């Protein structure tokens, strides 16, 4: 008996070490990411400027340098971290409540409905656009953001009701999500058919998922959503563990399955809709992060949820940093880079279907 508890303690210790290493990885990646760009800085310089920003002192600092970091690099980088964490957590809870390793924010239609909301604003003129060289400028980008958010929220409410009607079974929820995905993609195509070339171009740019759009207000709102939902999700982690096997088992262990599923569905929608409304579609982080996390930390959701958040943040920041460097000075939208991430994941699952994931 002693020995079993010792072994379990060892496991917990190993998990803590993994999580601490991930935090260190994320921090170093952040510093590295701040240092690169059209004006490349040494890491020392980055640390110096950051200390200057956060701990104001009498020392003098080049104001243009501070401005570049505060206004251009930091919002983008923090948005990458927060959005990645949001998507990682959303994917994890969707996979467990739908008991499907291939579930992601796509599965419940959140992304396609956000795109529809944006299309409505861009093409039907709720947001007026201009065409300036290569940059699409919205006179009021928040109209698009608001539209995208409203429609993803609407979509997840419809999915939640449809699934509730059928007793919230995983398959009912997935089918409802797929139906909504098709509905909104079809509606977006319809709008595109009537749009002008410029409008369609603007929509395509929006859909690409570009962290460069992020401003401090966007970053703050997304961070708030993350910080509000995370404690509730952590509170439910014990129920998620019970839900791994089946609804029946979870109920026999005292879990109120319907309530947990509906709350989680709403949390996951918020966590996805918010970053997507601000920066556009970012695919596969919500699918990939939980898988990597599960591989390195196991399936106990008390550890899995924070680990998925960390991995989501690292993946998205790494992808964006790569997007800023590979074709520099051209910056690739991060959504395009993450889209490629799905390929190795599915090939991996195809080749190593051992753990009973599928």
């Amino acid at each position, binding site marked *: 008996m002693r020995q*079993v508890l010792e072994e379990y303690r060892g*496991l917990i210790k190993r998990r803590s070490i993994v999580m601490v290493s991930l935090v260190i990885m994320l921090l170093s990646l952040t510093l590295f990411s701040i240092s690169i760009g059209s004006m490349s800085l040494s890491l020392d310089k980055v640390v110096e400027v950051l200390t200057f920003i956060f701990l104001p002192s009498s020392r003098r600092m080049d104001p243009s340098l501070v401005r570049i970091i505060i206004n251009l690099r930091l919002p983008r980088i923090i948005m990458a971290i927060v959005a990645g964490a949001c998507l990682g957590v959303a994917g994890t809870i969707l996979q467990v409540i739908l008991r499907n390793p291939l579930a992601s924010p796509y599965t419940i239609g959140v992304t396609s409905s956000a795109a529809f909301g944006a299309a409505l604003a861009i093409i039907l003129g709720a947001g007026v656009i201009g065409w300036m060289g290569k940059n699409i400028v919205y006179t009021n980008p928040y109209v698009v953001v608001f539209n995208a958010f409203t429609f993803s929220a609407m979509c997840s409410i419809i999915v939640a009701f449809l699934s509730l009607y059928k007793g919230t079974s995983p398959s009912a929820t997935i089918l409802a999500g797929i139906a909504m995905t098709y509905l909104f993609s079809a509606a977006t195509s319809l709008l595109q058919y009537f749009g002008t070339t410029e409008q369609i171009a603007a929509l395509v740019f929006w859909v690409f998922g570009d962290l460069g759009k992020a401003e401090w207000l966007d970053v703050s709102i997304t961070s708030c959503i993350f910080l509000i939902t995370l404690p509730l999700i952590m509170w439910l982690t014990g*129920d998620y*563990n019970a839900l791994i096997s089946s609804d*029946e088992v979870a109920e*026999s262990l005292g879990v109120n399955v319907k309530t947990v599923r509906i709350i989680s569905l709403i949390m996951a929608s918020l966590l996805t809709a918010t970053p997507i409304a601000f920066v556009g579609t970012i695919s596969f982080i919500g699918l990939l992060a939980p898988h990597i996390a599960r591989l390195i930390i196991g399936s106990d959701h008390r550890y899995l949820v924070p680990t998925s958040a960390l991995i989501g943040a690292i993946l998205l920041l790494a992808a964006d940093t790569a997007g800023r460097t590979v074709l520099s000075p051209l910056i690739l939208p991060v959504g395009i880079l993450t889209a490629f991430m799905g390929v190795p994941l599915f090939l991996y699952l195809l080749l190593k279907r051992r753990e*009973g994931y599928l």
Partner: protein
Amino acid sequence: MILRVAGVCFRYGSLPVLKDVTFEVNKGEVACILGPNGSGKTTLLRCINRLLRPYKGSVLVNERDVISLKRAEVAKIFGYVPQIEENRFPLTVFEAVMLGRRPHMGWRPSKRDFKAVSDILRDLDLEGLAMRKVSELSGGEWRKVIMARALAQEPEVLLLDEPTNHLDLKHQVEVLSLVRTLAKKKGLCVIMAMHDINLALRFSDKVIVISEGRIVFSGKVSELSPSIVERVYGIKVEVLHDGNGIPIIIPAI
């Protein structure tokens, strides 16, 4: 401690599945539910555990009606082992058994939870497997882990749906002996739905035979007559006796 199922009626939509089911099981007793496929055995277990809500009747544990209790309260009374259980996202055996502490524990397992789990792992001889992933276990080991989880709930009643399904002879005997020992030692009330009549009779104190949602026999193992089995399963049977008063029922060919 006594479990009393009184006049339970249940239907799926308009299809009646259980009709006025009434029986009692005492503390420390193992009762098996026999009956052909589709006779309502699993439905009955689910109604007792309140996974399904009967539209009439009551389930009483120590004279307390279970139907009106909260889910978490019900989970402290009944440990449930379903017929088939998949595992998509593998936990370790230790964590899987810890799930049974769910109704008792807060967010973090307490000392008592750790002790309960490690005691059960020792009792069921699963200590060596504690850190293995459940996806790497054999069918027999996995069954034992699920059983361990149900025991970690510290239930008063253990409900087993086909506990010997997919197990070889050795594991069948092992699992059922364990159930019997636990019932006697911990004073549990055990109800198990079974297909293998002879295996069931060998390890039970009480037999409940159910056919088309109705109880057709409820009593001691030695009192089960072949005519009931013939009527319920619709085949001719012969009865041998093993000398300990336990009938052995074989189909007459």
